């Protein structure tokens, strides 16, 4: 059995998760703590991929990153680099579809605890940076971790947008969901079943671990309520 789809999927989902975690936490933090005109519009735009069919996201990405698209042209001209039909395209698709999950979890986590806890730190002379790393981040961590796991799971399972921008190229863009689809298409039911079971095990293990971890964590320092 060729395990390339597993390695590819883990690599693509892993890279996308790191990028989505950093940007999701950053935007959630900035946007939940500020008031500006058009805030609701920006938030709605950030959440949009959650309600759109992945094919619509794929179409949008193809338009932007295609060789004649606004970003695709620049990448080709400046770096002689093409996103479409590469694993990088799959990473971009995973980032876009998984971002709203991380953003939503992070935004909720940063609003969950008492604002006066941060205010107390401010009156004690702490800088914004110190408050973020010593107060906000640790207090939001259970929700951030949930977002991280959901992001990884969503990135791992991404199919529609990935197929549209990265295509199905064995050993290059063949992630597990694509491998399942094309195995079934070509009548390789055993191969399809193998990948279905693999992704079931990975997904179940991730959620089980998250539930176990958050249960333990809630007991640790949320029991004052």
């Amino acid at each position: 059995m060729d395990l390339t789809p597993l390695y590819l999927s883990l690599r693509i989902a892993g890279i996308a998760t790191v990028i989505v975690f950093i940007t999701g936490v950053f935007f959630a933090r900035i946007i939940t703590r500020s008031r500006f005109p058009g805030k609701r519009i920006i938030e709605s735009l950030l959440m949009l991929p959650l309600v759109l069919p992945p094919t619509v996201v794929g179409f949008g990405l193809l338009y932007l990153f295609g060789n004649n698209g606004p970003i695709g042209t620049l990448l080709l001209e400046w770096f002689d680099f093409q996103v479409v039909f590469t694993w990088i395209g799959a990473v971009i698709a995973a980032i876009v579809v998984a971002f709203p999950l991380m953003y939503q979890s992070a935004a909720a986590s940063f609003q969950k605890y008492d604002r006066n806890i941060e205010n107390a730190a401010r009156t004690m002379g702490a800088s914004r940076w110190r408050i973020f790393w010593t107060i906000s981040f640790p207090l939001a961590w259970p929700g951030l971790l949930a977002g991280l796991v959901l992001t990884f799971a969503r990135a791992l399972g991404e199919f529609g947008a990935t197929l549209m921008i990265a295509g199905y190229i064995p050993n290059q863009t063949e992630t597990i969901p694509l491998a399942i689809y094309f195995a079934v298409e070509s009548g390789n039911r055993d191969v399809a079943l193998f990948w279905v079971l693999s992704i079931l095990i990975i997904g179940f293990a991730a959620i089980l671990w998250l539930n176990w971890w958050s249960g333990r964590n809630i007991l640790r320092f949320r029991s004052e309520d």
Partner: protein
Amino acid sequence: MLFVDIQKKMPSFLLDVHFKVSSEIVVLFGPSGAGKTTILNCIAGLSQLDSGQISLNQREFHPHNKKPVPAAKRHVGYVFQDYALFPHMTVEKNIRYGLKDEQLLYQLVELMGINHLLDNYPHQISGGEKQRVALVRAFVTKPEALLLDEPFSSLDQQTKQECQHELLHLHKTWNIPMILVTHDEEEASKLGDRILKMDKGKLIL
């Protein structure tokens, strides 16, 4: 000396107060929603004024044509109504967060009798103990003024009296301007060198 001159538009009234506090305990007394906590937040730098000025020991917090002095640089201690202890840190880490003087920590921990709590988390200690920790945590930052927002409201009668007594003792030692917000008349007259009554954003004479 703390000078307070605040004008700020609130949802249903205009907050407009002017008073000064020397090294005394001034009590802001009035019904809920009168604007008492907003005054404390403005002094601490957690809320902004529409106009006015706040100065502490000749330091203006709203210098002309410049940004207001941030909360972190005001040297104003604040004890919140629900204490706002950091739930993920032990009592010792809570106290050390803004610590300026190691000696002061031992002195205050001893004075307030919270030695045995240092390794506990906030959810493991009682309301009165949280109150003491919050006071020590505010004092170890060496504040030039201290704000207390209904600090005793959730304590039982006996603990409340003990904590009030400790606060008076601390004030005697530190001798800094303190503003205490309460809607408990007995507490106001017991702790306040001066009582400022408030209603709908104004001081009532």
